[in-house]
């Protein structure tokens, strides 16, 4: 063992420590900005010293290609990461995550093509194959999630016999995997085929899933990539990859479960059941009609309220209304002394915490933002609730109507506020296709229009009072 062996491995050890410390710091809003910088420092150290890794036996050409690939991949991601709008963050996270999964699968492919994994024993081979599978699924699945969120794949579409195709693909993957494990030498065709089928499985698994289920899906593929990285770390004998990958795998799995729980569904239900795509019951029929109001009149009610609670949803992100909304809230707070709070449902938007990021971008301090459990007891004492672009997460049918597809999902209890105002683009139903009883309530007034425009009009209304 030369000196470099120790130097490189000590750098990996430091990286692992800094990752865990950094992630721990990211658990509180005050320390979080430092946390990512600690983790970034660990990453820089590990990557730098890998250039001196004695386990690398390649020629100068390999090193040259390494630098070129890092410049292209890193440079491209730097530019897109700096430019991307906050509303487009879910798809960027999905894309970067898919790249990590693809990289893990690529490591496995190189190992399995080169007999390396076949010499090191069954455990290494097994981990390499499993890592290849999870990495490839995460790669293609994340790319599909990205395309869907970008609007490049509009509708969730289901092919006939979806479940049969899923089961068939899994059977082929298992058979090919066992075949590879039984081989004593590398069979490139077999390995390639395995990878292609795993890639296809990721596509078939993700295409039927609708937009509102994306928080679960993105979080799940994040966990998948973590696990793939951990397994490949074992295959190539890199403890930093095992630790970092496993920490992310476990954290991501927990987050995925929390997201699914916030919709009162299981993860497998999200993946395989589809939602709002089946015919039949969409809940009880509604009697009554929606009562609409002009922004100017609504503004008057807000101005004379003591406390209001604002519930943002994906519609706010689509309309990019977060800045105008915050302007309106500032006028309410500063000139009319209204107590303003924001209530955020765990699965609002297209990834976990999506709304928090958008409000933070607009400048809303995080101590004005409340979780579901914190805010629900406060709705009855609020003078008004303002729903902006949210639908299913405020639908009282989830509490009352057993025939509704969303029955049992924890919701924000908006209906118990004194008055409810809903900013909505049109009269249609939400993502799930479920009719929202809230919109027909006696104390509910609808403000129809583009959310951004309505917020501007509300501010204008306040200024005229």
């Amino acid at each position, binding site marked *: 063992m030369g000196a470099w062996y120790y130097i490189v491995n000590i750098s990996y050890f430091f990286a692992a420590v800094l*990752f865990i410390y*950094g*992630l*721990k710091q*990211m658990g*509180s809003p005050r320390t*979080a*900005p430092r946390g*990512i*910088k600690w983790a970034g420092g660990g*990453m820089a150290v590990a990557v730098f010293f890998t*250039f001196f890794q004695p386990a*690398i036996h*390649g020629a100068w050409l390999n090193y040259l*290609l*390494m630098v*070129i690939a*890092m410049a292209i*991949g*890193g440079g491209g991601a*730097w530019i897109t990461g700096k430019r991307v709008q906050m509303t487009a*963050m879910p798809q960027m*996270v999905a894309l*970067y995550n898919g*790249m*990590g999964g693809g*990289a893990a699968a*690529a*490591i496995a492919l*190189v*190992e399995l*093509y*080169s007999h*390396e994994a076949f010499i090191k024993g069954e455990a290494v081979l097994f981990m390499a194959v499993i890592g290849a599978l999870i990495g490839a699924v995460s790669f293609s699945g994340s790319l599909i999630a990205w395309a869907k969120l970008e609007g490049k794949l509009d509708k969730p579409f289901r092919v006939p016999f979806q479940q049969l195709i899923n089961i068939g693909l899994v059977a082929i993957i298992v058979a090919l995997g066992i075949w590879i494990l039984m081989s004593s030498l590398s069979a490139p065709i077999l390995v390639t085929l395995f990878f292609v089928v795993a890639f296809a499985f990721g596509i078939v698994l993700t295409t039927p899933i609708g937009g509102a289920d994306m928080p679960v899906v993105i979080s799940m593929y*994040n966990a998948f*990539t*973590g696990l793939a*990285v951990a397994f*490949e770390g*074992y295959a*190539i*004998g890199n403890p*930093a*990859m*095992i*630790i*970092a*990958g*496993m*920490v992310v795998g476990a*954290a*991501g799995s*927990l987050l995925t479960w929390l997201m699914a729980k916030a919709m009162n569904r299981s993860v497998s239900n999200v993946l395989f059941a589809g939602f709002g795509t089946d015919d039949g019951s969409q809940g009880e029929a509604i009697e009554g009609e929606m009562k609409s109001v002009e922004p100017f009149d609504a503004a008057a009610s807000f101005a004379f309220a003591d406390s209001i609670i604002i519930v943002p949803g994906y519609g706010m992100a689509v309309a990019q209304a977060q800045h105008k909304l915050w302007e309106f809230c500032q006028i309410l707070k500063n000139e009319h002394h209204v107590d303003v709070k924001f209530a955020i449902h765990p699965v609002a938007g297209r*990834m*976990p*915490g999506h709304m*928090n990021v958008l409000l*933070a971008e607009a400048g809303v*301090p*995080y101590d004005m933002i409340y979780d579901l459990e914190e805010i629900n007891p406060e709705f009855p004492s609020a003078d008004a609730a303002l729903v902006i672009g949210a639908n299913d997460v405020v639908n009282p049918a989830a509490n009352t109507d057993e025939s509704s597809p969303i029955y049992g999902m924890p919701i924000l209890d908006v209906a118990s506020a004194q008055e409810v105002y809903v900013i909505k683009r049109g009269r249609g139903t939400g993502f799930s296709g479920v009719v929202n009883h809230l919109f027909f309530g006696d104390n509910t007034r609808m403000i129809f229009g583009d959310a951004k425009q309505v917020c501007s009009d509300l501010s204008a209304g306040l200024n005229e009072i």
Partner: protein
Amino acid sequence: MITGFVALYIFMLAAFTGYEIIGRVPTILHTPLMSGSNFVHGIVLVGSMVALGNANGFWQILIGFVGVLLAAGNVTGGFVVTDRMLGMFKSSED
């Protein structure tokens, strides 16, 4: 080289660490934490570099190259977007 049961213990302890880290995190930080953990699994770059470094022949080198490229994208993109998001969070006292 890490062998057999030692590896199993590493896997187990790391899994509990991950579980503990995210267990009590407020919803407000779910997005940055997810993109932060997305950045952390970018450590796959280190493995991709070793794979490309030892690759022989056209196909291995090509796949190794693509691996490093993707991993570098994961690391850089993950860091940039997380840093941007966390920089925006502030409290009313700030």
